[in-house]
């Protein structure tokens, strides 16, 4: 009996070794495709789990929303979500999709395993209780984390792992919207930031697998039924005005979200209290305008169907209320994404615009409210994410119609361009850019991030001491090929300054000074130094600022060596070559 129990794991172990052996003999592209398909399954299941959870939760909670105490639901949900994250799974500091982009940008796509489930639970708690947020961010993080950890299981390289993380995000988006092309566009445009043949194939595979999982488990449903619209040239012309309005809504949303996020912490220190306070405010807004609660797919459907309650003012107030409630939910610490709120804000903006135009020009036959609602969704999504292709594909896929394609492209591109003047970066990138953490592929910063000071350190330097005479120094110069001479205190070995040959050349040719001048008198004490931890991008900037070719590397007060611009650029070139070869 004992033998049987003991032999089983050994059999599994050798089986896994055999599978790995076969896997590693495959072509790298085939390896990526296989892993992408697995990640597609994981991402698809993650989104189905959250979607089903939200549906079931909504089924039980929706009947209670008519009671007065429903105002507390978003507060309870947001507080529970924070408590779950901070105290139960200790997934502190997760800031949604930016963390996925950061891991791709800086950490070769490494993500924590706990993020694969923690965000689903916290997102569920926030959204099902009525918090104004979307389910996409939790599923994107979950899918990306599944991808990262599966990539580790298969010992994939950093570069491959980043693609697989993108696959996880693509599968999640594709599954949640039943929209494979949107998943591909989102992963390439918003997450990875580059469209290359190596990226596209596995991401497309993952996206399709994710969609199929969703279709198999939830049915092949288009989220919003397509309607034919009678579109005239006047409507097309009006698209320009709508693009301007969606750009304004987007900028307003991004700024308000940032204001709430950065200030909420100042007023309330405890995270769960802060989230609860945000939730109460959202609950109060929801009392007057229940359409702003939750992910908001139902109001979108009504806008597209032309069934939304009448009134220009109501549409305008709905836009502002949705912007405010989403900013409060996410900014105060609730879990969830901005994708679905962007769609709701966009549909309300389109509705407001259509009603405004109808009021101003009653003699014109305008296309329906649904048409402008759809265009508004594309405009706001494209602007906030700075990803027009994602916006375009999303609208086409979730409505299942192509007759609005020209208008959608027009509004998406125009809106993204206009909002770019005021908010040049995507909502996902802005915090990373502020922290200097966004390194896009094939940029200087990305290449330099792969190198560090210690591997460029030149240690063959001739150290001199302050009490040396110029004669001693001249002797050293004779035999040394370097232009820079670090000066160290002979008692404690601390770095005290540096001599650059160009600065002392005049003295070296005057033998009369040889015994009269000490190194102490000719050395430069105000030397710009760098430390082993410094970023090479900052060091390169220092080289340019002070027009120097070499800088001393100091650790504590000890001189370690020199870093030269020539060596740095030489390594840069080699690293660039290596990255291109990958």
């Amino acid at each position, binding site marked *: 009996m004992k033998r049987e129990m003991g032999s089983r794991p050994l059999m599994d172990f050798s089986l896994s070794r055999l599978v790995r052996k076969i896997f590693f003999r495959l072509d790298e592209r085939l390896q990526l495709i296989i892993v992408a398909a697995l990640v597609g399954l994981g991402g698809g299941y993650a989104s189905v789990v959250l979607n089903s959870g939200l549906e079931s939760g909504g089924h039980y909670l929706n009947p209670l929303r008519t009671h007065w105490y429903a105002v507390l639901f978003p507060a309870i949900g947001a507080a529970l979500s924070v408590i779950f994250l901070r105290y139960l799974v*200790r997934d*502190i500091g997760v800031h949604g999709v930016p963390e996925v982009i950061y891991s791709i940008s*800086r950490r070769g796509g490494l993500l924590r395993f706990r993020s694969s489930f923690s965000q689903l639970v916290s997102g569920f708690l926030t959204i099902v209780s009525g918090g104004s947020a979307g389910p996409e961010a939790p599923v994107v993080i979950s899918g990306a984390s599944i991808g990262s950890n599966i990539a580790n299981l298969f010992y994939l390289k950093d570069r491959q792992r980043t693609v697989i993380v993108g696959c996880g995000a693509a599968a999640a988006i594709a599954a949640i919207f039943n929209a494979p092309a949107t998943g591909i566009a989102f992963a390439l445009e918003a997450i990875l930031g580059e469209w290359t043949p190596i990226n596209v194939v596995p991401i497309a595979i993952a996206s399709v697998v994710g969609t199929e999982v969703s279709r198999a488990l939830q049915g092949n449903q288009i989220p919003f039924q397509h309607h034919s619209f009678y579109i005239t040239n006047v409507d097309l012309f009006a698209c320009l005005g709508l693009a301007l309005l969606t750009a304004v809504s987007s900028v307003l949303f991004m700024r308000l979200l940032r204001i709430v996020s950065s200030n909420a912490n100042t007023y309330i220190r405890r995270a769960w209290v802060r989230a609860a306070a945000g939730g109460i405010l959202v609950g109060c807004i929801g009392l007057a305008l229940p359409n702003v609660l939750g992910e908001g797919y139902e109001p979108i459907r009504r806008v597209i169907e032309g069934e939304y309650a009448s009134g220009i003012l109501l549409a305008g107030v709905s836009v502002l209320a949705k912007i405010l409630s989403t900013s409060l939910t996410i900014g105060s610490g609730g879990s969830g994404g901005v994708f679905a709120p962007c769609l709701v804000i966009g549909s309300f903006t389109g509705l407001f615009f259509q009603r405004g135009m109808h009021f101003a020009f009653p003699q014109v036959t305008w296309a329906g409210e649904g048409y402008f609602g759809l265009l508004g969704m594309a405009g706001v999504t494209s602007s906030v994410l700075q990803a027009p292709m994602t916006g375009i594909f999303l609208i086409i896929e979730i409505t299942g119609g192509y007759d609005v394609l020209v208008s959608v492209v027009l509004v998406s591109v125009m809106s993204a361009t206009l909002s770019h003047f005021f908010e040049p970066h995507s909502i996902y990138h802005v915090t990373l850019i502020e922290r200097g953490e966004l390194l896009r592929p094939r940029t200087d910063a990305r290449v330099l991030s792969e190198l560090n000071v210690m591997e460029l350190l030149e240690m063959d330097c001739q150290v001199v001491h302050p009490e040396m005479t110029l004669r001693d120094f001249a002797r050293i110069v004779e035999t040394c090929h370097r232009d820079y001479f670090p000066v160290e205190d002979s008692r404690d070995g601390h770095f005290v300054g540096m001599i650059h040959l160009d600065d002392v050349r005049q003295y070296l040719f005057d033998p009369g000074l040889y015994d009269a001048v000490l190194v102490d008198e000719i050395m430069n004490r105000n030397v710009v130094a760098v430390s082993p*931890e410094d970023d090479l991008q900052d060091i390169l900037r220092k080289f340019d600022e002070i027009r120097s070719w070499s800088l001393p590397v100091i650790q504590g007060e000890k001189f370690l060596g020199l870093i030269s611009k020539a060596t740095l650029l030489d390594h840069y070139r080699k690293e660039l070559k290596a990255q291109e070869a990958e």
Partner: protein
Amino acid sequence: MKNQLLHVFRNTPFGRETFLQSLYFCKMTGLHLKVFFPTAPQFLMYFAREVVTVDLDKSFLQSPETAKEHAEELIREAGVDASFFEPTRHTASTLPDIPVNFGFMTCSRNIGDLSSKVGLGHIGPRVRTIIKNATFPIIIPTSVYKEWKGILVLFGGSANALNAFRLGAKLQALSGLPLKLFSYTEKKPKAYYKKILEKSGLLSGINSEGMEWKFIEKGSFSEGLYHVSHDALVVAGAYAHGLIKELLMGNMMEDIQTILPNNLVIVGPHYNEE
């Protein structure tokens, strides 16, 4: 940063003992001490294939206003070359990333509060994960400051043990202290262990320097550990990695650090000598 030892500072009396141990290690080896003062309850370490989230208990965040002052005072007294580490990368604003290219790292037996219930006799799960992933050795100091007068390598014949031996030789060269080998034979002949070292080209070094190699042939491994001198810095490989190996025999490392009151240096499976 291979010549640096990372120490996560804890501003408590026990933290001071650990810090003194790091200072002593740097003093003996000439390493530069890098001191990190945590300001958030977590930090991340991005290793090659795993992100390790280190959950710190409250004591690590205690009295931040006096932490630097206390550390400076101890550094001055020890006369060790040290500097403070400020994280420049953050996964999120309250989640700093700690580089993983240090030469050594000191980990008290427990870093995280989740494992504190287990007690001081066991290595906490986070420390185990760091050992499993790190390319640098981990120093697990005694709870109370204790100087070491020699280096002793526990050699069991595994790849990790070979790395431990290489590290022991490196520490011997840096500190000038005598190096000893210690093997529990596990019913294998002595020649088996000698052959392993010979294959790796390390046996000649032992013979030429007349290094003492103690074999324990009788009794259990735990009993054999009595023969380890009390004032030696013990260098050991992280025995067993991988789920099955860990389940079957993974408690060897636990045995060593539970039974021995010595300062330990543990070499993990991903240790990179370079």
